[in-house]
C-alpha cells in the first residue's frame, strides 16, 4: 500500500502551499464577512499550527523537524507580469523550506483568542494579500520543482504534498497539465499528492474531501476537483478513524472548508484521533 511511510526526523515530509493572491481574493468568502484572502491566510496559519504541535514530543524539547513547509504566493505585478513570491513565510537561510522547528520559533506575531478553556495562542505566519492576476501554472511549476528536488533527496520518504489554494481560473494556461506533472513525481512510498482548495463567493455547501462535486455550481471549483489527487487509502482510513466521514473515491479537494484536519491525516506515528 502506498503512502504508509511514517513521518519522523529520518523521514520528514514536504508540504508546498501555492496560494492565489490575485485581486479577486479580496472579495468576501461565501456566507462570510471575511475576504477569501483572509480565509486562505487563516487556513495556512491553522495548518502550520497543527503541524508544529504534531511535531512536539515533550515539553523539554523544541518541536521536531518532521515537516518542511514552503508557502508561495502567486499573482501579477503592476505591469501584468506573473510573480511567484516566497515572502509569505520565512525562508530559511539555505533557500529551502522552513521546518516545523523553525516555524515554531519564528511566527510573525501571536494573537490571543478567547476559548472555552481560556485564551489560546494563535501564531500568525501568513498575512492576506490580494492584487493582480492568477498565474497558477507558474506557481505549480515552482511547486513541482521543489517536489522534484525533494523526491530526489528523499527517495524512501513520504511523497511531497502540494496544496493549491485558489478562487478562480488560471490566467497563464491549463493548470491540470502541471498538476499531472507533479503527480508523476514519486518516492518508493507513492506519488506526490496534489490538493486543491477552492474558495468561492458563490453560496454553496462547504465540502471537505468529497468523492464528487455534482451540483457545486462553481465551474472553477469543479475543475480544481478534477485536478486533485485521489486521497490515498491510509488517509481515508485515518480520516474515518477520527470520525471524519470520507468516502472511497474521495479527492484531495476542499471547497470553502478549512483543511487543518489534513494535519491529522499525516502519519506521525499512532494517531490520536480516537481517544477514550
Amino acid at each position, binding site marked *: 500500500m502506498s503512502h504508509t511511510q511514517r513521518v519522523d526526523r*529520518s523521514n520528514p515530509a514536504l508540504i508546498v502551499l501555492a496560494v492565489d493572491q490575485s485581486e479577486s481574493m479580496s472579495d468576501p468568502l461565501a456566507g462570510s464577512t471575511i475576504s477569501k484572502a483572509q480565509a486562505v491566510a487563516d487556513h495556512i496559519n491553522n495548518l502550520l499550527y497543527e503541524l508544529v*504541535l504534531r511535531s*512536539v514530543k515533550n*515539553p*523539554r524539547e523544541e518541536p521536531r523537524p518532521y515537516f518542511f513547509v514552503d508557502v508561495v504566493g502567486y499573482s501579477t505585478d503592476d505591469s501584468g507580469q506573473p510573480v511567484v513570491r516566497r515572502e509569505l513565510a520565512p525562508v530559511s537561510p539555505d533557500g529551502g523550506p522552513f521546518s516545523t522547528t523553525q516555524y515554531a520559533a519564528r511566527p510573525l506575531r*501571536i494573537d490571543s483568542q478567547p476559548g472555552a478553556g481560556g485564551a*489560546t495562542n494563535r501564531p500568525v505566519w501568513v498575512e492576506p494579500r490580494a492584487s493582480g492576476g492568477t498565474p497558477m501554472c507558474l506557481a505549480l511549476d515552482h511547486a513541482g520543482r521543489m517536489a522534484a528536488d525533494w523526491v530526489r533527496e528523499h527517495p524512501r520518504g513520504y511523497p511531497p504534498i502540494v496544496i493549491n489554494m485558489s478562487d478562480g481560473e488560471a490566467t497563464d494556461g491549463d493548470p491540470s497539465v502541471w498538476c499531472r506533472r507533479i503527480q508523476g513525481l514519486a518516492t518508493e512510498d507513492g506519488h506526490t499528492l496534489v490538493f486543491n482548495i477552492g474558495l468561492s463567493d458563490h453560496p454553496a455547501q462547504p465540502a471537505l474531501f468529497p468523492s464528487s462535486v455534482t451540483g457545486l455550481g462553481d465551474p472553477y471549483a469543479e475543475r480544481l476537483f478534477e485536478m486533485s489527487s485521489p486521497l490515498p487509502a491510509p488517509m481515508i482510513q485515518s480520516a474515518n478513524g477520527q470520525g471524519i466521514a470520507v468516502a472511497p473515491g474521495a479527492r484531495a479537494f476542499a471547497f470553502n472548508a478549512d483543511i487543518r484536519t489534513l494535519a491529522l491525516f499525516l502519519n506521525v506515528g*499512532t494517531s490520536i484521533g480516537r*481517544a477514550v
Partner: protein
Amino acid sequence: MSDLGKASGGTVPSMVALVMGGVVTIVGTVILAQSSDTLREEWYVLAAAGIVAALLATLLVAATGRRTAHVVSASPGAAATEPVPFVAPTAAGSEVLVPLSTLASSSLPKEGASAEENDDAGAAGPLGVAAVADGASSSFDAGAWARTLVRRWLEAPPAVTPTAVAAWALECAASYATERATRAGADGSGSSWWQAEAGQKAAHATFLGLRVVRTSDGLVWRAVAVGDALVLHLRRAATGFQVVSGFPYEASSAASGAPLLLASDAAETRSLPSLRTVEGPAEPEDVWLLATDEVARWALAADEAGEPIWEVLATGGKAFERAVSDARVARSVVNDDMTCVVVRASA
C-alpha cells in the same frame, strides 16, 4: 487458535456443587433425625426437602459460577459486538495473585531514536501482573503517560472489570497530571507559545493490562485492552509454543493504524466507550506475551506465515534486539517502538 467467542467450562463447578449439596442434605437429615422423635418418624419428608434444596442450589451455582475463556465485558453503553456471558463478579479479595516469572521484558525505541525517545513502556511484577502501553507518537508527552499507566498497573492493579479499570484510569490521570505539573515547574516549560498550547493537550496511549490469579476454580487470567496492544496466551508443547488465544485480536491484519487510546485527560477518561476485558482459564507454566502494536503485528504475521518467532520473543535481550534489527533491514516491520513482555505462571 481458539475462537474468542467460544464458550467453555461450566461442567466441573456444577458437578462439585451437586456432590456438595448431596452431602450436606444427607448429613443434615441424619443429625435432625437423631435429635427429634417426630423428625425421626417423618425422616422421608426431611430428605425430600433436602434433595429439592440441593437441586436448587446446584442450578444456582451452575448458572453463576460458569468459567469462561473469552471476552466478558464492555463498558456500559458500548454496543455489544461479541457474546457477553454472565460471569461471577470479580472479588479481588477472594483470589490470590499468582507468582510470575519474567522470561523477557524488552523495549526498543524507533531506529535512529534514543532510549529517552521511546514512547512505549512495558513491565511485569513478581505477583500476577504485567502491562504494556504505547504512547501515541503524535501525542504530547505520550511516553511519560505510557510509563505512568504501566507503573500504576504494577503498583495498584485494579480488578479487571470496566468499572474498576475506569476508576483506576482516573487515578492514573491524576497521578500523571501531578507529575507533569512538577516537571513543568522544574524545567520552566511553558514559556513559549507551543509549550503553552501543547501543555493543554492530553497525552494518549494504548494499554494492555494482565492479571493472573488463583481462584477456587484454578488459575485464571484476565486482561483489559484499550487499542491495539496485544496479549497472547501461549502454552508450551513438544513442537514449541502454541497460541491458546489472543486478545483483543488474533490476526496480524487486525492491528490498526488508528487505535483507540486511553487519554490522560480526566474528562475523556470518564467516557471510556470501548473498554474491553477478557477472562480465561489457565494452567501452571502457561505463558503470556504482551506486545505493543508493531511487535504484535510482526509476531502474528510470522506465525501466520508458518515461521513463528515466539522463542526469540520469549528470550528477549540481545536476541530480541538482533531480530528487530534484522526485521527492520528486511522492512518486515515499520520503524516503531517495539515492546514485548513475556511472563510464565509458576507451577
